[in-house]
């Protein structure tokens, strides 16, 4: 009987050890509900830019991100998106994908300043489709480019007042680009998807 108890204890210990040593399930940043999130811009992002070239991009942000409002930081306006804000940018294979065509890649910004991999307070992630593997970028390629969002740049309202925009090119209410068209911007998109952006 004693031997059985010892064996059981050993087995439980081994299982607990195996569980403690097992790799943790990776966090999924691109939530399955992300297609229901509102877009951050009405601009049709089908023009070529470094990094994505002329492939269509559609950025969406969770509701938490839309609560961000600019605050005065001296003479400068400052945007600080709340922690757990997630922006998912769909990247399509071409500038004008066919109706119903799925994106080939998702690039994700997840606000998580406590994560040691965070750069500028954000995790920079790519999710290759269709295999669905998410990879956190440890290089500085993404942030180097997105740092331009915090100064004058050629996109949206061009940030002429050089607001600190927390590395986000298209912040709510600062969109003066071309409106999205049903045929080109997003297959099956509707105007209501633009979260509060007129």
């Amino acid at each position: 009987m004693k031997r059985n108890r010892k064996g059981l204890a050993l087995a439980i210990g081994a299982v607990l050890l195996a569980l403690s040593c097992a790799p943790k399930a990776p966090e999924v940043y691109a939530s399955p509900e992300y297609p229901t999130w509102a877009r951050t811009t009405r601009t049709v992002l089908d023009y070529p830019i470094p990094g994505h070239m002329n492939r269509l991009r559609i950025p969406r942000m969770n509701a938490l991100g839309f609560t961000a409002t600019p605050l005065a930081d001296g003479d400068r306006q400052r945007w600080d998106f709340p922690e757990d804000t997630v922006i998912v940018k769909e990247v399509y294979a071409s500038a004008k994908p066919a109706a119903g065509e799925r994106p080939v890649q998702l690039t994700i910004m997840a606000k998580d300043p406590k994560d040691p991999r965070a750069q500028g307070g954000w995790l920079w992630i790519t999710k290759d489709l269709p295999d669905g593997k998410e990879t956190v970028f440890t290089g500085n390629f993404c942030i180097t480019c997105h740092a331009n969002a915090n100064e004058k740049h050629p996109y949206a309202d061009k940030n002429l007042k050089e607001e600190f925009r927390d590395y986000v090119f298209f912040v709510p209410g600062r969109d003066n680009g071309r409106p999205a068209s049903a045929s080109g911007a997003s297959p099956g998109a509707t105007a209501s998807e633009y979260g509060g952006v007129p």
Partner: protein
Amino acid sequence: MAGQSPRRTRLAIKVNLILVVTLAVGVGLILAAFAANLIASRDQITRRFLKQEANDLYTSIENFMIPGEAPLAVKFFAQVQAVNPGSRILLFRQNGNFAFSDNTTISRVNTNLGTAKFRPREGIVTTVSMPSKPGFAQAAATPPAERFFREDEGGRSYFRAYRPLINLPKCTVCHGSDHTVRGVIDIRSDITDEARGQTIILAGAGAGFFLVVSLLAFVIGAFLRRVVIGPVNTIGLVCSGVAAGRFEGRVATRSDDEIGDLARTVNTMVEGLEERFKLTKYVSAGTLGALRAGEEPKRVTRTLLFTDVRGFTSYTEGHPPERVVEVLNALLDSQARIIHENGGDIDKFVGDEIVSYFQDEDASLRACRSAVAIARFCAGHGVESDGLSVGMGIASGSVILGMVGSARRADYTVIGDAVNVASRLCSLAKAGQVVVDSGAKSEAGPGLSFKGPFGAKLKGKEKPREVWILLTSTDDDAQGNFKGGKP
């Protein structure tokens, strides 16, 4: 203690081997891990500085480029190199061509701006070929990846960084949006001196470690040989000597530790053993056997041989005591030797008398042979013995064999009628004569010659006994003249 080196050498080798292996494996691994960690840390620090340098340069170039002052960047690179000759900074286009080697970029910028804002330069000389290092492709790819690596070239060591120059959104106004990476900054830092210093430190540390290990092994080995192995070897040799019957060996020690205690205990033990060994000369073999076996007194069959020097009393009167003792000891020693040679056991010496007994099937035969040999010895060594000879009596029968005496002092001896008979027969025997009882004569078998039987009236015995004279072929007259009776 001489002749102990082989064993000591083996032990010393083992101890030294254990020490060296322990130090080499234990300390060596820790030291190696520490050294590896140190090198890795140093490399990491160097990389971090190089990365920081790359970032600083990137920022500088970016700021040169925005206002269209690329030539300033060229000057900046040259000045950095002049200040620090060990360093080199180069800028390559994405296709691997050296930047500023021609007017391609100026033409493209002017096209993108729709105006000839920048004037093509003249007299541009390409002095650097495109990098052939494998990391360059990754640094120029989309997405680009920074590359840091170490390389040796021309007998010198370098840390090298490929830092991608990204076509930032703000750069696209001039450079266009059709590419992601504009070029690669190639930063090379000379670390030859550091690498050489590192090698020297490692070699010195390794040599120092080897020396320290060797010295420690030697010192500890010598210490152990002196304090532990030497005394233990000596103790072993002393014990081996004792096992071989040599008791003169002692362990010389002055230490007051456990080894010293052991040595002193061994010395005490050897002294005790030596004392007991010496005492065994005064104890019969049967006594020793009984002590070993812890035998209780028991009834056994034995053949008793008594010998007694004839005319000894008168001899002592006419000779000095020293001579008496000398002759008696020689006579007793010769008899004892003969008895032992025939498998007999000396029970005791009583003055000039020997009491001995024989056991096993041919006990009587061997007793008789002993008696014959003693008689012949006495006959042949009359001069040395001053003419002394012995009379002998042999009887066989059941006796009690065992410890007799008190708890403080006891003898292991034989008691019984056969003992008394043998003693009486010895008393009857003349010099050189052997008187044997019928039982012993019968057991001795046909190989011996006896004369008799004679009827002998023994002291303390009511009936006369039938006795025989063992012929020793040395003195027929003496053998035939038996005072105990007539055949």
